[in-house]
């Protein structure tokens, strides 16, 4: 069914979107996604042993980077890219030359909606990104730009243009994205509820951003999507996407951009080991209690008019306020700066770079 759709008309944003996939195992999951992904360019970020050969299924147009490639391209700046953690995926965001990114985990498959129809997650993300968000006033009928919906009575007309959408956060059926303690208590819980809604997360509200099924406008928010220092040699794991999400939300709120959550669903097939997860998350569970008030009260100056400027300001605040929680945050703050420097080196003419002529690519 999906193949017929593709032959009818050009897939949306075919030449403007990259699909970034981190993997350490294999890419077998791509077979199921073929009808929806094949028209698009893939950026594979191979984690772990660079001497291992990861086979990409036939027919996909892709570039693949292993650790050796990352080290070669970034030189000493490669220290900001995590090793032995899917956080390494943000390298893919940095090397991409496209306007939009969709990232998905290699244990995520095509889900079915309640009618039994296969869900083209990428298509829904694109719809989400190409329609405005409504962060300034909550619409009780959720996304008013969706077919069959609209703004409700009482919604001021002056707010109905909305804000540009920077991020589209999708959800998961089957294995839910729980933390280790919840997984231990509810090992058999499965998410079977299909909530047919997309909504904007209001300005001033933080949320836990999951990197499993995520899309964003790289031109609007790319430099904020740094997934932090995780994995090998680091005291923490499974907080990469959380960190990126909190930074991104603060910056989006500051710049007047919107973040949507809800559809599309993917089918999450693999339940990771809760004991392994607990070891990775352990410090995060405590640190989080300091991180949340930090992000909730973070403010950026009027001069922070680009994503890079916002991000660098944030990194200074991380060092000043979180350095005392643990020395890890001093390293993370430095890595945030390294990331932005590396981003600007690899993306020199992108609109909004700090200190460089603003040749807007829009």
């Amino acid at each position, binding site marked *: 069914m999906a193949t017929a759709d593709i032959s009818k008309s050009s897939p949306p944003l075919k030449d403007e979107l990259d699909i970034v996939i981190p993997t350490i195992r294999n890419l077998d999951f791509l077979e199921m996604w073929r009808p929806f992904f094949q028209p698009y360019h893939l950026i594979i970020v191979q984690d772990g042993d660079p001497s291992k050969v990861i086979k990409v299924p036939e027919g996909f147009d892709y570039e693949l980077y292993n650790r050796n490639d990352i080290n070669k391209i970034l030189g000493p700046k490669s220290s900001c890219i995590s090793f032995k953690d899917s956080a390494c995926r943000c390298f893919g965001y940095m090397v991409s030359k496209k306007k939009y990114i969709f990232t998905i985990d290699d244990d995520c498959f095509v889900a079915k909606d309640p009618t039994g129809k296969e869900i083209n997650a990428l298509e829904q993300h694109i719809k989400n990104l190409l329609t405005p968000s409504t962060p300034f006033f909550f619409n*009780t009928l959720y996304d008013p730009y969706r077919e069959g919906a*609209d703004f*409700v009575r009482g919604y001021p007309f002056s707010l109905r243009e909305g804000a540009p959408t920077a991020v589209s956060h999708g*959800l998961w059926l089957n294995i*839910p*994205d729980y933390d280790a303690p919840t997984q231990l208590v509810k090992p058999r819980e499965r998410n079977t*509820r299909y909530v047919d809604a997309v909504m904007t997360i*209001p300005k001033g509200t933080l*949320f*836990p951003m999951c990197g499993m099924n995520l899309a964003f406008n790289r031109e609007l928010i790319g430099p904020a999507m740094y997934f932090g220092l995780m994995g090998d040699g680091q005291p923490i794991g499974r907080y990469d996407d959380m960190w990126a999400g909190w930074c991104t939300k603060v910056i989006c709120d500051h710049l007047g951009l919107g973040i949507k959550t809800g559809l599309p669903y993917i089918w999450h097939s693999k339940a990771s080991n809760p004991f392994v997860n607990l070891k990775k998350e352990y410090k995060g569970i405590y640190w989080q209690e300091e991180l949340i008030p930090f992000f909730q009260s973070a403010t950026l100056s009027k001069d922070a008019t680009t994503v890079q400027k916002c991000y660098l300001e944030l990194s200074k605040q991380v060092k000043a306020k979180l350095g005392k929680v643990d020395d890890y945050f001093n390293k993370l703050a430095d890595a945030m700066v390294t990331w932005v420097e590396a981003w600007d080196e690899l993306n020199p003419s992108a609109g909004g770079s700090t200190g460089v002529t603003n040749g807007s690519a829009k």
Partner: protein
Amino acid sequence: MSQISINHDEVDIVIGALQLDLKSFMEEWRPVFSLFHLIIVKDPDLKGELEIPAGFNFDLYTKSDIDGVVGSSSNAISFSGYSCRYFGYLMSRKKYIISIDDDCIPARDSAGNFVDAVSQHITNLSTPATPFFFNTLYDPFCKGADFVRGYPFSLRSGVDCGLSCGLWLNLADLDAPTQALKPELRNTRYVDAVLTVPARTMMPVSGINISFNRELVGPALLPAFRLAKEGNLRWETVEDIWTGMCVKVVCDQLRLGVKSGLPYVWRKERGDAIESLKKEWEGVKLMEDVVPFFQSLRLSTSAATAEDCLSEIAAVVKEQLAPANPVFARAAETMVEWVKLWKRVQTQ
């Protein structure tokens, strides 16, 4: 969906009767309403006898009751039209109040099952809300759901829920210009979720299908914002929108939650959007001032009860909005009179 055992003695269902014939409305709701105590308030402008079928446990209030209780305040506070239900809130002594417009009947969910809106509202009110951090799996206290990875543990016990806002299938609560532009638009999407509207986020609360914890926020559900040409169709009012923002500010101040989503009711076709549009534009225009006002409203730390909050809000309305339009001046006065009335009646 509800696993909460409901103490029926804690609930009043308040119905504002804007039409005389309540028979079909009550029959549709009989499986649910017959289990609870009802407060029916007849619109004081409605002439004639209400037709209420047998088999319901209810108290009926009419114009003479309203005049008797409200007395001298009746000049400032109007209970006409949709505002008649507020008299019911004033008279209730129960913990939870549920209100549904008399042109709404029970909905069916995607599987075709009868939606017990009352039960869902009570579940919403009696389970915690989570206004300080957004949970991407929506209501974490729902069966089959939980808090997601990254949700801070210190925020997982949640706070009390003050207000529960339900939704509508068929005729959604759109404003007249929108419905006039899209006359065929009907809401057919059943979104199976309840979520907490985050703290400091404002929203348009529709009075069509709501419930609240009277003990926590009771006085904040008030009849204050009356348009000059207000009519008996929701398209010709914004009183509930004003009230809803007061309630949200109160809840944010008192660290209570406001939920939105399930339950759905089925809203019957009534009225003509274009006719309403010809009559009444004012409400739509006024929102342009109302929304920014409430978004920037900050109450003092000493406002520790709903009554305190409302008195403060009224004072700021009088100072900042009243000069622009007499509607706001009247609203501020009415709010002050209402708080006095509430205190008087509640202590009797």
